[in-house]
């Protein structure tokens, strides 16, 4: 069984879960690092720190964006520099297949 579906190229799928108050900032970071689009869903969650104030204004947001590996790495670096320490935020990167990967890179 082949595990690579026969589509036309691989890109990074970056997912960020953060307290919702950060949404505008994270979208600015994404755009600055080269992302051309993203999808946002409302979420809630539990973590090891629970330092957010999100209870009061809508929990967490879950932002996912198809980007080039370089953009994913750049955003991750921005998060590590300015966000992971103080904010309620987690992020991960997966490798996914898309149609016409040029669109996202």
């Amino acid at each position, binding site marked *: 069984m082949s595990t690579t579906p026969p589509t036309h190229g691989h890109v990074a799928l970056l997912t960020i879960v953060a307290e919702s108050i950060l949404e505008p900032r994270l979208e600015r970071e994404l755009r600055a690092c080269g992302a051309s689009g993203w999808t946002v869903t409302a979420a809630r969650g539990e973590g090891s720190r629970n330092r957010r104030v999100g209870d*009061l204004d809508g929990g967490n947001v879950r932002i996912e964006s198809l980007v080039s590996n370089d953009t994913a790495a750049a955003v991750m670096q921005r998060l590590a520099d300015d966000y992971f320490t103080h904010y309620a935020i987690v992020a991960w990167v997966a490798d996914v297949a898309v149609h016409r990967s040029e669109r996202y890179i």
Partner: protein
Amino acid sequence: MEILRLALDNLLSPPVLGFALGLVAVLVGGDLRLPDAVYQGLSMYLLLAIGIKGGVALRASSVGDVILPTIAAIGLGVLIPVLAYLILRRATPLSGLDRGAIAAHYGSTSLVTFTAALVFLEASSIAVEGFVTTLLAVMEIPGIVVGLLLAGRAADRSLSWGASLHEILVGKSILLLVGGLVLGVLTGASGYERVEPFFGALFVGILTLFLVELGTLAGRRLPDLKTAGIGLPIFAILFPILAGTMGVTAGSLAGLSVGGATILGVLSASASYIAAPAAVRLALPEANPGYYLTASLGITFPFNLVIGIPLYLEIAQVVGG
């Protein structure tokens, strides 16, 4: 005694009982939170309704009446956070950053405490100047700015102002409150009449539902009390009394009626739990929400709701009588 009777009436009013219900639900392990979307919808309703009602009343006020109380409100908005910051240095071992964060909350105001006070005064047949909603709007921001400045100085770093401040000013709270005020002024009593069944008659009921939710949120904050030390809860009860007395006095001096002075006392005594947390979280992520939210939402809010509001009225009656 009259004041005790009023306090008891207040305690047994549906909004306060709603708050208690939410709190008790958390204590027995339940959860009466409204769905997020409904909570946000109701909070937009409350802001707009308060704004409109205030605007309709404001229309009847002369500019001369409004000027002095507005100046008093701004002055209190600057003074109160400074005072809070200094007192917290004595009373607690908190860092300057955490003290600034708390000061920002007490410098700003709580819409629901304000609203509950209006409902309380109305039930007690005590008149209130129409323009007090303007004072609410005016006092929302300055205290936050001062608190953040104090924290920034303490942390010896510049804040990322631009973003945070803009985000507050065009945030939903201010837009709805000020927008509602303007809407109320423009539409006047004849226009208001047609929306009164929605924005007026339902108000106390919706506030009750809303307070069930706030009770739940406050209940969830209580465990954090243990980690905060004894100084903070004491501050969260005594400081509102001090600030409330200042507000009542300033209001009286500025020419407000007993009802109006009570409201300025309530605005001074109350601590923000919507605008301030958002601003503080963005500008001061290192500050611990376990301190500022627990103090403002977990202690000061219920204290004002149950004891503070009738107390400030009593003070206003003594000062202004």
